[in-house]
């Protein structure tokens, strides 16, 4: 241990004899490590962003979304006896796919609320009683829509947090709100949810804070008008949220459900299936490509840096031939010489690694500030960067060190 410390101290001393040379020789490694850290941090940031989006959708869930058809398409769909997305689909899926645990239905309604603050424009939707559970929406107070509400078509509603706030005192539990020409009693208010709007997102995530839920079945009064205008999908439902028992079953269940749907819709393209897990896979695939590209850039700069180190170490070795001879004469074995020069090259690249990590942190901060990209520096990425710089030092230091170790001590001593 003491000897190792001494070897390192001697290596430091030798390197400090030529400060400028040492500094210049590690530039390549610094750039390489900076690139590695930046790559890892950007990659990690992107991954976390995608993950958080997909987590909002739920990894155990499969979404079936109704597609609004043009008139021509709708005629074709009718010819194929498709009725659009409907509660029949729900029943077929529950019956046809054993892995399905629950299916929640949602129907968006183009109804407007009277007496709403301007900044909030709530989306009214009729949903099944299990919607909150399937989507894991927590309640702030009151209750969610119940089975009885659906059966008896009660005019009750559950408000999102922003809606409740927007209504002020009228948004309290037990008060009534007016939608179109009808009054709905508020039975519950949802908890405020962290909602991230992401540009260029693959999936749209519903903002539950700005929604009003009413029981599915009680929408009749609100539907009349808009339905006649033909703006809604023919089957009535906007979305089916299918919850699968286990996360691992999602991909299998998705293909079964797709087959059920295609058969019952006669092949009509009036629905769209979104599997968050598949999106996750896709995102990971894209991520991998990105990582390979950046990784190769980082590797190339590390390679170039490493060659620089090798060059300098070879020059150092030939410059210090006599020193090698002296050390051999006073008892250094080949291994000692090898270790000494390896220690120097590793020390060089490791310090390059440290500077590179610092550079990477500043660079990542700069990218976040300038381009607004999400980034995340993990401890692992720092460890990996330092490890890579060490490996470069060992790899490119071995040849010069070997060259030094195999020198003939007598010839080395005579070297001028």
């Amino acid at each position: 241990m003491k000897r190792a410390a001494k070897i390192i101290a001697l290596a430091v001393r030798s390197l400090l004899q030529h400060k400028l040379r040492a500094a210049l020789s590690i530039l390549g490694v610094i750039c390489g490590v900076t690139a590695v850290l930046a790559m890892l941090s950007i990659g990690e940031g992107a991954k976390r962003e995608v993950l958080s989006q997909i987590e909002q959708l739920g990894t155990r869930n499969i979404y079936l979304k109704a597609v609004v058809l043009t008139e021509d398409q709708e005629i074709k769909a009718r010819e194929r006896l498709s009725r659009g997305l409907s509660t029949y689909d729900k029943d077929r899926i529950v019956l046809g796919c054993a892995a399905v645990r629950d299916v929640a239905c949602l129907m968006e309604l183009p109804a407007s609320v009277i007496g709403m603050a301007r900044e909030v424009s709530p989306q009214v939707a009729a949903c099944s009683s299990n919607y909150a559970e399937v989507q894991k929406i927590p309640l702030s107070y009151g209750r969610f829509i119940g089975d009885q509400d659906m059966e008896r078509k009660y005019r009750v509603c559950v408000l999102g947090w922003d809606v409740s706030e927007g209504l002020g005192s009228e948004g309290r539990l037990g008060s009534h709100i007016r939608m179109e020409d009808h009054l709905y009693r508020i039975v519950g208010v949802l908890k405020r949810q962290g909602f991230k709007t992401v540009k260029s997102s693959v999936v749209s995530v519903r903002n539950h804070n700005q929604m009003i839920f009413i029981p599915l079945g009680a929408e009749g009064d609100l539907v009349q008008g808009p339905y006649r205008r033909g703006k809604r999908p023919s089957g009535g439902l906007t979305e089916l949220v299918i919850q699968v028992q286990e996360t691992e079953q999602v991909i299998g269940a998705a293909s079964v459900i797709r087959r059920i749907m295609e058969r019952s819709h006669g092949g009509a393209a009036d629905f769209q299936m979104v599997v968050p897990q598949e999106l996750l896979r896709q995102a990971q695939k894209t991520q991998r490509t990105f990582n390979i590209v950046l990784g190769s850039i980082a590797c190339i700069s590390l390679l170039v840096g490493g060659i620089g180190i090798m060059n300098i170490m070879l020059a150092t070795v030939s410059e210090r031939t006599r020193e090698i001879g002296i050390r051999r004469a006073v008892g250094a074995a080949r291994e000692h010489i090898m270790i000494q020069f390896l220690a120097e090259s590793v020390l060089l690249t490791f310090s390059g690694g440290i500077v590179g990590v610092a550079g990477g942190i500043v660079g990542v901060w700069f990218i976040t500030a300038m381009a607004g990209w999400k980034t995340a520096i993990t401890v692992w990425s720092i460890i990996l960067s330092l490890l890579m710089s060490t490996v470069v030092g060992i790899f490119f230091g071995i040849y010069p060190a070997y060259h030094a170790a195999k020198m003939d001590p007598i010839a080395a001593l005579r070297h001028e």
Partner: protein
Amino acid sequence: MSYLIEASGISKEFSIGASLIQALDDIDIRVNEGESVAIMGPSGSGKSTLLHILGCLERPTSGRYILDGKDVFESSDRQLSNFRANHIGFVFQTFNLLSQLTVLENVELPFLYSSSDNGETRARVTRAIEQVGLINRLNHRPAELSGGEMQRVAIARALAIEPTLILADEPTGNLDSRTSEEILELFERLHDDGATMLMVTHDREVASRSQRVMTLRDGKFIDGVEVRS
């Protein structure tokens, strides 16, 4: 009785280009413990090569070498190095100190490679530096010392490991006569304290300070052995 150094039939050949050079030709040499021996000879006579072989820095082409009861050239490179680190103190004509290290660190250098790294390293190092009279220059670099002082540091480096054998290769070759005298006196003092010394020189004056002088010419010892006292 057994000798400290017992080398027999030592030959060494070098090939330079196509020609083969016989540096040492079937040499026998025996040295008792506590003896001081000088090997003389003109340049190119093979005396440095002999010193390197006796110092375990180089292997002979053929021959046997027993040092302190051990057959040296049976050992691996690693063992030879270890042997040098623990038993042999070299003193060179050109001092061969490391310029980036201080006096203290230069003298400590062999301990980096020796197996005997116990707590008394520092004590041995300072004792050796004291012996050569440089205790007040501990933290100086070689560049700040005179030639004589540098050679004394080199001697201290050889002494610190408490060697079985001190080998000196033209130790006064780069020094003026007054400094040479100082160094030779130092050697005599060490010899009086019981050190075994083997010195290579081409200077008859210097050689005559040893107990025994052997002359080497064209790779062979010639005629008689001069013995002083």
